């Protein structure tokens, strides 16, 4: 099936530093979603991007969808310890509604 590559696998930051995770596909995507999984928890839907070049913000989180709809990023400004967790992108293409998940980026925030 479709592959979605997500980098980095892990990211250590000091509290207050910024963080970015990237998601890339070799095929054009219909949409992309972002999920957050807290340690010991389950993935929770954060947002969906659909339009080419779309940018959405949720407080300190900024989500972008590339112009070619083949990549996306999640940027967190001034990380806090509550941001700790694994962030997954998930994408669908070709009219499918079945999301394919990236392997996730685990964010570790040091106080």
């Amino acid at each position, binding site marked *: *099936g479709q592959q979605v590559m*997500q980098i980095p*696998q892990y990211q250590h930051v000091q509290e207050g530093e910024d963080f970015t995770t990237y998601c890339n596909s070799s095929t054009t995507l*219909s*949409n992309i*979603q972002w999920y957050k999984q807290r340690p010991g*928890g*389950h*993935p*929770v*839907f954060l947002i*969906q991007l659909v339009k080419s070049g779309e940018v959405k913000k949720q407080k300190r989180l900024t989500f972008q969808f590339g112009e070619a709809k083949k990549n996306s990023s999640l940027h967190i400004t001034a990380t806090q310890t509550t941001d700790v967790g694994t962030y*997954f992108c*998930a994408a*669908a293409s070709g009219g499918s*509604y*079945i*999301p*394919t*998940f*990236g*392997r*996730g980026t685990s964010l570790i925030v040091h106080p």
Partner: protein
Amino acid sequence: DVKVTQSSRYLVKRTGEKVFLECVQDMDHENMFWYRQDPGLGLRLIYFSYDVKMKEKGDIPEGYSVSREKKERFSLILESTSTNQTSMYLCASSYRGRTEAFFGQGTRLTVV
């Protein structure tokens, strides 16, 4: 709020035993999914269902089967467990034609 409930949080089974993992959602979602999550591998799709009695194989269906007799319930069956099926199993559901999924709390299965 959407609620997706999995029957067990933790299970320990012996090799060769049969296991049923149950999942129930209360939002009348048409689509339901079973994923397994392993460190460094992310979420991999085992099976999904888009309607009652309908099922489709995902990326890693070998060693698993599913059942969907009612719209709200999707069961994952491991006929004869093996140690390589030790994993976190996550159920999810979504509306028809929508990709955003709602997950259950997960079942951590250990096969010894």
